[in-house]
């Protein structure tokens, strides 16, 4: 409990910093958003009206104050292109993004962890070499190449899976593989080396000496102790996964927050862009917080330290 409270206290400055940074990026970077939105041909009266509507005619500090106050009420302003509240637009897209991210995470974990254990158990064997090779490729392959390749093979060539959209479980497979591949590769390498490291430890020798079957030694004892770095790495990779949804959703026309953000940028809908950036960044901050808590729960040494 004390650990949880201490960690919550550390969360506040980060949240405040992220909220401020997003404001600064949108408001301080040179360039006139009003002119960008209306085009250079717009008349001065139109520009002034939009400026007033967005509150851009007020001093920066007043804008910042207004922004914080609105944010505290959960008000992210209204989208310029649809006139709907930004928060509602984004909330409607979160389920798709979460579905994709969770599917990618699960896919990465259920393929990488068992393969990593097997590779470690048969170190130097054919399976080990093959998984190492594929994990090396997996780390380097960019999702915006892997995704189109998967479409070429599985949607166009074999016609097994849909090219894009979000209709049923079949449409989830290719996006989840595209998004999860990088993480799977990293997890695979990490699981393998963590199990190998654990296999050198005394308690493994003790387990063997007690005559436990080999699979039990690996599954129960080696993997159990290798799980901590694996969970840590999953946490560290969450950021890549979340920002990866932006690209993956674009490839597969997946109706999530990332796709919405790119559409908003194309339409120069700044309130919506700001809302999307804020949403994804805050989601990342909270996910990291959750990982820290899980980590403390898995490893009593951390939570009892203070």
């Amino acid at each position, binding site marked *: 409990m004390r650990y949880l409270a201490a960690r919550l206290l550390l969360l506040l*400055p*980060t949240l405040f*910093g*992220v909220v*401020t*940074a*997003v404001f600064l*990026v*949108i408001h301080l*970077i040179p*360039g006139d*958003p009003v002119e*960008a939105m209306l085009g250079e041909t717009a008349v001065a009266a139109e520009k002034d009206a939009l400026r007033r509507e967005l509150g851009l005619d007020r001093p920066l500090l007043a804008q910042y104050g207004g922004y914080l106050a609105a944010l505290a009420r959960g008000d992210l302003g209204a989208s310029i292109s649809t006139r709907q509240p930004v928060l509602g637009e984004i909330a409607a897209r979160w389920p798709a993004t979460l579905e994709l991210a969770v599917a990618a995470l699960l896919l990465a974990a259920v393929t990488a962890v068992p393969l990593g254990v097997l590779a470690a158990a048969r170190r130097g064997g054919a399976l080990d070499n093959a998984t190492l090779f594929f994990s*090396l*490729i997996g*780390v*380097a*392959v*960019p999702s*915006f*190449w892997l995704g*189109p*390749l998967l*479409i*070429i093979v599985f949607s*166009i060539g074999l016609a097994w899976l849909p*090219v894009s959209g979000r209709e049923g479980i079949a449409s989830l497979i290719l996006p989840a593989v595209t998004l999860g591949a990088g993480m799977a590769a990293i997890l695979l390498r990490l699981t393998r080396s963590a199990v190998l490291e654990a296999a050198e430890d005394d308690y493994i020798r003790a387990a063997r000496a007690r005559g436990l079957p080999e699979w039990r030694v690996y599954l129960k004892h080696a993997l159990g102790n290798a799980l901590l770095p694996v969970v840590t790495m999953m946490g560290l990779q*969450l*950021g*890549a*996964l*979340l*920002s*990866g949804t*932006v*690209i993956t959703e*674009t*490839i597969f026309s997946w109706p999530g927050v990332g796709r919405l*953000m*790119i559409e*908003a*940028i*194309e339409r120069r809908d*700044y309130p919506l*862009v700001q809302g999307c*950036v804020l949403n*994804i*960044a805050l989601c*990342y*901050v909270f996910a990291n917080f959750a990982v820290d808590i899980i980590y403390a729960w898995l490893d009593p040494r951390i939570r009892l330290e203070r």
Partner: protein
Amino acid sequence: MKLKAGLFLLALFGAVAAAAPLIAPCSPYAQDLLRGLDAPSAAHPMGLDLLGRDILSRVIYGARVSFAAGFVVIAISGLVGVLIGGMAAVWGGRVDMLLMRIVDVAQAFPGILLAIAVMAVLGPGFGNLLIALCLTGWAGFARLTRGQILSLREREYVTAAVAAGAGNWRILTRHLLPNAAAPLLVEAAFGMASVIVAEAGLSFLGLGVQPPAPSWGSMLNEGRAFLLIAPHLTVFPGLCLMLLALAVTLVGDALRDRLDVKRR
């Protein structure tokens, strides 16, 4: 083995980028609209794009964009990061506190999200892309430099230098930074790989390098509409991007093993 394979690939891409005007069979901008989307042939080994431009030539020139982004962003964000991390470590106290909170915030944005936000406001273009990636990239160098200096400062040779009357600046440049070089070099190698992929990613999203300039990312973006009838638009630029990212990662891996650096 890793080092050799990585360096070989890297040298190959480097030579291709440097000698682009000499080895490219066509101009990367020369159009032949009537033959748009033609499949690979003897005359055009990687085929033609929608406007009938030779994809091999565009891939060759695209290597220049990737290298330019990688080197410029790592040089600038590395320098800024080392300076800020060094300042935080040497001055300590409130300066350290303030600078590290800024680093925290910069790192609280997942992956390329901050760069996407900056590009949304700045508008597309190569120069803006470099700015966006530098804004994202410096924080890792700052945190690493600060950590290195804080731990190196306790070493005996630093105490000896202080006893010998060396000033702060001399200790920083003569003793601390050279000894922090190995982890910084490894960070730079991995950073370069992610900058190269990030440049292509932003260009793929339409936020980076603009047509007609050839970036592997924007070429992949152009290929998206023709996956069915012209997959060669997608296959070749992506393959090059993956191989270059792989080469830089392999070099980083090998450097880390050789220099015995533990990453985070």
